[in-house]
């Protein structure tokens, strides 16, 4: 009950005129970056980051998180109307969303998607409301070994459950750690890994990496296949909106199952993309109409959308209560938290009650604002898609260049951003996952500090990671996740070689 009181207090912070305006601005900007190919939630949020430095932290996080919700919705709009996923996490929505829209039911497809997305987000927020402060309370007793074990578990779950090739994930993670180590070492004060470039003493900002990896990289992937936006009608029939949402409860099994998958993938950092694919795959297998999937099935829209939003929302739970972001965008937001002078982790729930509960309350309100705004603005943003790509591409390049420069007024950052663009393109093309790379850049230092502090406590013995039940469980769980892909491969070898399903091939194409 204490949580509900705190939540009510949070509503008094979130539901004020300036904050509602910020939500609307954030959602609209979010839909914009969600709709535009080449701009996504991670680099949209990092572009806005420098503009929030003068704000109250709670206002800033409301703006950024609203942008995240907007981007999640915006990605679905283009998936359904144009068969072009605006976000990697909405690729699975194209499978059934576009066929349904093409068959003359665009309003039904959009309303079903938004309705189930809102349901997924709601479940995610409820989970955060009741679980986050409890997790934080448990985490208050954590020492450095426990922290390192939690970080280890988070990174191991990327390898075990991320869906990309395990060794490619490991390489991406390790590169992120190395980039995080560049600059001044916080423990000893010595300068590391600058490779003779003096300017690198300040380190490599995750914003620069995100701009290049997600911005330029995605643009390069998009330019390869010059797509033509063949839009279906984007007119909204309001009566059909309510009818479609009214039909949703008939699919309550799919809704609940997808929300559960989404929440699980969001909390353990599998991310929204993996969640939506997993949910779609499971729905196809268990639905009675599974054979019709791909031709405009309602459950084929409900499942990925619900899981996508449930994962996107619940990714904030570990960020708030443990200081471990559950998705790339959450990692960028956590970087923001640190810049605003807050320390993400359990102490937030003690020291920054207004911030935490203001944010949680704003998630309830922000998603309602997002659904309303996205329905109202579908025709506007659909028209935006008709601007030729050759015009949009240079503008996105300029946005990324200026964004990278404004982090610390450094030209070197711009050059590095371009370099990250090439890496991002290669990684995307060859299915190296990008989210763990960004995550490692943001929390690499913290993981390293936790490890070194543990070593100081134990005077160099690794035994400290098996000193009590909790830490042993976490470490063993992490090792199990690391070995999971190996075990699965062995199991597959022992069984007769089965023909691979086409679903996994499609999935590999889009895992970021």
């Amino acid at each position, binding site marked *: 009950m204490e949580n509900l009181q705190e939540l009510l207090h949070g509503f008094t912070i979130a539901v004020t005129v300036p904050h509602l305006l910020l939500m609307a601005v954030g959602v609209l900007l979010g839909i914009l970056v969600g709709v535009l190919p080449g701009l996504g939630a991670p680099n949209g949020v990092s572009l806005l980051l*420098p*503009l929030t430095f003068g704000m109250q932290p709670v206002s800033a996080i409301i703006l950024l998180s609203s942008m995240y919700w907007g981007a999640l919705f915006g990605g679905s709009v283009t998936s359904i109307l144009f068969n072009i996923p605006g976000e990697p996490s909405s690729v699975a929505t194209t499978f059934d969303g576009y066929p349904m829209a093409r068959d003359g039911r665009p309003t039904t497809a959009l309303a079903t998607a938004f309705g189930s997305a809102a349901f997924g987000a709601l479940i995610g927020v409820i989970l955060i409301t009741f679980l986050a402060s409890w997790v934080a309370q448990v985490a208050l007793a954590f020492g450095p070994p426990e922290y390192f074990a939690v970080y280890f578990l988070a990174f191991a779950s990327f390898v075990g459950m991320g869906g990309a*090739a395990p*060794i*490619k994930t*490991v*390489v991406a993670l*390790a*590169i992120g*750690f*190395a980039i995080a*180590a560049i600059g001044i*070492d916080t423990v*000893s004060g*010595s300068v*590391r*890994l600058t*490779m003779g470039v003096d300017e690198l003493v300040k380190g490599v900002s995750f914003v620069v990496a995100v701009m290049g990896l997600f911005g*330029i990289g995605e*643009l*390069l992937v998009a*330019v*390869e*296949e*010059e797509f033509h936006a063949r839009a279906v009608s984007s007119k909204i029939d309001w009566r059909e909106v309510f009818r479609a949402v009214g039909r949703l409860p008939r699919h309550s099994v799919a809704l609940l199952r997808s929300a559960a998958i989404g929440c699980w993938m969001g909390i353990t950092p599998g991310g929204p993309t993996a969640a939506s694919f997993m949910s779609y795959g499971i729905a196809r297998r268990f639905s009675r109409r599974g054979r019709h999937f791909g031709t405009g099935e309602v459950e084929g829209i409900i499942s990925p959308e619900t899981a996508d939003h449930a994962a996107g929302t619940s990714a904030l739970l570990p960020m708030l209560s443990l200081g471990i972001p559950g998705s790339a965008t959450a990692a960028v937001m956590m970087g923001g938290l640190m810049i605003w002078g807050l320390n993400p982790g359990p102490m937030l729930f003690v020291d920054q009650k207004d911030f935490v509960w203001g944010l949680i309350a704003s998630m309830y309100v922000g998603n309602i604002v997002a659904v309303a705004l996205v329905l109202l603005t579908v025709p506007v943003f659909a028209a935006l898609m008709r601007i*030729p790509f*050759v*015009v949009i*591409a*240079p*503008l996105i*390049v*300029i946005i990324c*260049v*200026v964004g990278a*420069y*404004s982090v610390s*007024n450094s*030209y070197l950052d*711009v*050059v590095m951003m*371009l370099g990250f*663009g*090439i*890496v991002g393109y*290669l*990684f995307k*093309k*060859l299915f*190296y996952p990008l989210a763990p790379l960004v995550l490692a850049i943001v929390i690499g230092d913290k993981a390293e500090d936790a*490890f*070194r502090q543990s*070593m*100081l406590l134990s005077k*160099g013995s690794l035994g400290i990671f098996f000193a009590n039940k909790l830490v042993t469980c976490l470490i063993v769980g992490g090792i199990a996740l690391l070995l999971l892909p190996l075990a699965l491969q062995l199991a597959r070898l022992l069984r007769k070689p089965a023909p*691979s399903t*086409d679903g996994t*091939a499609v999935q*590999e*194409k889009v895992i970021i």
Partner: protein
Amino acid sequence: MISRRALELATTILTGSFGVAVVVSSLDNGIGWSSAGVDAGTFPFLTGIIIVLGSLYNLVRGLRPVASLANVPIAITPLELRRLAGLFLPAAIFVAAIPLLGMYLASAGYVFAVLAIPRHQSVPRALAMAAATALALYVVFERMFQVSLPHGALASALGF
């Protein structure tokens, strides 16, 4: 034409050499255990080793032909390569021109060049878009958010 195999190879070489650079560079900071605890170079050293080993594994995997849908033999067709170059080269020239021309001139020139030279837009329209871009940057950054973008060596030589 660039094959998937060549692309995998190039990427593993890229990641592998980054790993080697990390390993070599972290040796300067000392690895192992000293009176102050774990030395500063230890953690980067370990990540460097992981990068090198992982890259070697991916190198071997990339060389071995695997028949699967996801493993298409051709990764980039000549047409795609042209499109890639068409986007990346102007962007690189734009970035290279920033120290000399400054952000405003360079971005206006960039927009004009990519729109007018391949004849995507008429010259007057491309000019208008270029001017609008520079103006928008100036209003948003210099005025609204008080972020000073680089004005360039040319502008400072002319006394701006």
